[in-house]
């Protein structure tokens, strides 16, 4: 590998500590539940106890009469304001696509479709009183059989989640590339398996919250929301409430973890709390509790795949066919993003000449499914990686070598996979250099020596150690666009406003680094504002690992324009050609004269004169706004490898080493990228071995607390050894790709492979995630019984 480029001190590529940390570390950072409101009312929701029931009556009269209760609203009280939410992501134009849009409602009216669906909203003087009043509401509902299991959901006799539809089919899509039947006919072997992936919770430590305040004099609504998409929330709220967009200000202040579900909109609470604040003329606030979060915040990952791999004798992939069921939950407001990501990501970093992928999305009586960190990519990676493992075993090939044989070569980029991605653009990989990443991971984990020496030695001593290595790609940085405004203030400090809110990704630092580099100022001098629609009101949100790519590129473009303005003005002031000027240390000066020149703040003052004439066409100040919209997403890639030891008696898995080699193009701040990977891997380990939302056959979630739903703790997650590779993206000026979800994507596939290798003597196959000690123990026992 070429030596890494020299790192700047504070600009792009530097390991800069974060601008936002002092506020977060001292308790001064503002989260939604911290917003000081003048005499707020507090909300509690009465939620469905049934997964599926006909709602016959809701009597809130006793609740309304309780002292301290300001209002109780049911669906009937909402009048014309009651209407289903928007379809957030219309499906891509896949030929033959079937898609039935059924979006969530603010309060249930006739039917209850999942446990936790809100039925009534109590507004009271305190949250305690509001919760008291929930007990006063009398709900009559006739339970219906619940739709829980995906395979049973399509049976003709299955109960229907949405009765106006002929079945529980939410969508059906087929995408094809090449001629799979022909590939299969000439294959040396066809590897066929069924794979299952089940649901987990996103489990941001901050639950959702919405607070709203209507200023009747100014006719302005302010909403604080734990959303990843404040601008679309503002626009949608204005439309629903009959206000101008400029009359609504939505602030997503510090948000305590997003991981996907906070991009979902509109949650019922998001439309009801602002409406109630306007109606009651007082600030209104709702903060989700953890139990509500388990039922009412969106979830992900229920799919069943029947997949086959047609492979030549030498291990070359000839084609893949995959037919899968996708659980979309009770409603499908997020369109087909998740299953399309699964469909696309299955192709991975490999040259797959033919592909047939068919999925059926299914309504169930469970919490709504929308993207959670990885957003369907996990499933695709799991299927292809496991198929390659089984193929390697059948063909007598090494697991790493069968991957190497199929990796795309650098001269194949840009590589068109000939199917449509979630952004409706063809799935085309922009750039990549895959084989060196594999080599680097194998070397880092000492793959060959482990298999040749260490594993043999430890196995001889009766220990069950295994190694795994998996490859993945991540489609990141999709459009449509983001924007940014950069302003040099007279103080010399730089202000940067952009629309994408932050949930911990370091926007206050990464965006500042970009601007700092272009303007030659210190990172600490760039003051970043994100997620406040009063500051910037064009953009879409923080999702799909796109902040650094799309918003970062907009910051770069705005800073470049400000730089041009600085150079133009400075060249007049200093009577020098722009080409002879240097921006450094917060000043513009002639090359070689770092003590001379003029401070940026002074120039900013000169650019905004109080009297006199300006040149025709002059714009005031040193300020520019710019937008960036990529043609399509940029594709990051990586290789994860791990060594585990399994105790076959307790089925406990100990991760001995975890290696990540990843390539997200040009790295803006390696410290932050590593942090994203560490967190992603921990999330992936949780998904693989600790976390599972367990529903019974009545659609009741059985483990809706952190006592029963296990998030990995500090004693469960290993240190991750990370290496950065940088293959620039040609799709944006900085060459960056996204990294936010990367760590979480291949972990399930890796976990399965390494554990299977550790238990090679038991001869089991792992075709499902999540595992748990219990489930692994069952698999081990079943495999022993089989081999007897």
């Amino acid at each position, binding site marked *: 590998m070429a030596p890494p480029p020299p790192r700047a001190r504070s600009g792009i590529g530097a390991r800069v500590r974060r601008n936002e940390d002092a506020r977060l570390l*001292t308790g001064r950072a503002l989260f939604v539940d911290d917003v000081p409101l003048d005499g707020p009312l507090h909300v509690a929701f009465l939620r469905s106890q049934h997964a599926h029931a006909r709602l016959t009556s809701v009597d809130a009269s006793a609740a309304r009469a309780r002292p301290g209760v300001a209002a109780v609203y049911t669906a009937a009280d909402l009048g014309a304001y009651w209407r289903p939410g928007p379809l957030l992501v219309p499906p891509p134009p896949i030929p033959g696509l079937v898609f039935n849009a059924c979006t969530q409602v603010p309060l249930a009216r006739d039917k209850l479709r999942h446990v936790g669906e809100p039925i009534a909203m109590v507004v009271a003087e305190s949250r305690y009183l509001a919760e008291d009043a929930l007990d006063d509401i009398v709900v009559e509902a006739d339970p219906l059989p619940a739709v829980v299991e995906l395979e049973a959901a399509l049976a003709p006799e299955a109960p229907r989640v949405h009765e106006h539809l002929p079945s529980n089919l939410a969508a059906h899509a087929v995408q094809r590339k090449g001629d799979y039947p022909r590939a299969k006919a000439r294959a040396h072997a066809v590897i066929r398996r069924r794979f299952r992936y089940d649901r987990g919770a996103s489990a941001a430590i901050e639950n959702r919250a919405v607070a709203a305040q209507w200023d009747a004099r100014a006719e302005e609504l302010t909403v604080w929301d734990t959303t990843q998409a404040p601008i679309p929330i503002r626009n949608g709220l204005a439309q629903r409430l009959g206000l101008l967009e400029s009359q609504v200000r939505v602030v997503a202040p510090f948000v305590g973890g997003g991981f996907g579900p906070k991009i979902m909109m509109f949650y019922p609470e998001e439309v009801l709390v602002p409406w109630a604040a306007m109606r009651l003329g007082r600030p209104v606030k709702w903060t989700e509790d953890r139990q509500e979060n388990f039922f009412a915040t969106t979830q992900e990952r229920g799919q069943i795949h029947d997949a086959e791999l047609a492979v030549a004798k030498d291990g070359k992939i000839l084609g893949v066919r995959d037919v899968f069921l996708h659980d979309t939950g009770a409603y499908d407001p997020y369109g087909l993003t998740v299953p399309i990501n699964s469909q696309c990501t299955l192709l991975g970093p490999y040259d797959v000449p033919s592909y047939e992928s068919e999925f059926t999305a299914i309504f169930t009586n469970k919490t709504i499914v929308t993207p959670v960190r990885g957003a369907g990519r996990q499933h695709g990676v799991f299927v292809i990686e496991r198929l390659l493992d089984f193929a390697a075993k059948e063909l007598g090939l090494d697991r790493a070598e069968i991957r190497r044989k199929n990796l795309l070569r650098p001269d194949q980029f840009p590589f068109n996979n000939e199917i449509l991605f979630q952004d409706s653009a063809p799935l085309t990989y922009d750039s990549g250099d895959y084989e060196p990443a594999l080599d680097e991971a194998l070397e880092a984990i000492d793959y060959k020596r482990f298999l040749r020496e260490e594993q043999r030695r430890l196995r001889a001593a009766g220990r069950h150690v295994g190694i795994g290595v998996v490859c993945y790609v991540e489609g990141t940085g999709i459009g449509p666009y983001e924007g940014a405004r950069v302003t040099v203030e007279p103080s010399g400090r730089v202000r940067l406003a952009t629309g994408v809110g932050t949930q911990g990704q370091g926007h206050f630092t990464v965006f500042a680094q970009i601007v700092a580099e272009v303007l030659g100022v210190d990172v600490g001098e760039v003051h970043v504002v994100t997620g406040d629609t009063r500051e910037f009101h064009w953009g879409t949100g923080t999702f799909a690992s796109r902040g650094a790519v799309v918003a970062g590129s907009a910051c770069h473009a705005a800073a470049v324009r400000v730089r041009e303005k600085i150079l133009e003005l400075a060249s007049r002031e200093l009577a020098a050609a722009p080409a002879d000027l240097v921006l450094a240390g917060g000043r513009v000066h002639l090359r070689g004269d770092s003590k001379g020149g003029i401070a940026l703040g002074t120039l900013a003052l000169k650019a905004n004169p109080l009297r006199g004439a300006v040149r025709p066409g002059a714009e005031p100040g040193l300020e520019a706004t710019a937008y960036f919209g990529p043609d399509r997403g940029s594709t990051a890639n990586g290789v994860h490898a791990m060594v585990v030891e399994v105790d076959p008696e307790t089925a406990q898995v100990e991760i001995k080493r975890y290696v990540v080699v990843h390539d997200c193009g040009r790295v803006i701040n390696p410290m932050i990228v590593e942090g994203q990977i*560490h967190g992603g891997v921990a999330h992936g380990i949780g998904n693989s071995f600790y976390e599972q939302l367990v529903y019974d056959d009545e659609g009741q979630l059985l483990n809706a607390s952190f006592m029963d739903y296990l998030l990995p703790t500090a004693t469960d997650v290993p240190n991750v050894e990370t290496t950065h590779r940088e293959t620039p993206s040609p799709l944006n000026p900085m060459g960056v790709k996204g990294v936010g979800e990367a760590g979480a994507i291949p972990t399930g596939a890796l976990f399965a492979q390494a554990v299977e290798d550790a238990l090679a003597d038991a001869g089991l196959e792992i075709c499902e995630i999540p595992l748990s000690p219990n489930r692994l123990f069952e698999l081990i026992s079943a495999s022993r019984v089989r081999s007897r």
Partner: protein
Amino acid sequence: MTLVVTVNGVRHERAVEPRLLLSDFLRHELGLTGTHVGCEHGVCGACTVLLDGEAERSCLMFAVQADGHDVATVEGLSDGSEGGDALHPLQAAFREAHGLQCGFCTPGVLMTLVPFLREHPDPDEREIREALSGNLCRCTGYQNIVAAVRLACGTPPSPRA
């Protein structure tokens, strides 16, 4: 009921409902919103504060149980002004080692670690991880939290990290 409690060195006397949680009292009665609430059933640790110097989960206590006691919250760790010097050494180490991302769990993590480090000034990695095992963090994978603790204690980072 009347509650008399000292919080970050300041004496407060308030009439409160007996059922008011200490976490809600600190956040909404005193405006000390640095103490965060993540689960309200004592698992996530985000609400951890010091009660007479020991780490306690403020979501598992009623405010009235703190009557006559001394409470310390994250706001009391440093004066909170900008610049590294004003931060508590542990806070500075967290910033240096990127021991936080969204920062929501961080106040509870810090308040758990303060008494731990008082009793274990030179912990090894296993001890640090065990001390942290009652605090959930979804962002960092804990690795850089451990690194931050090591940095604060002046111990070298773990190999291969």
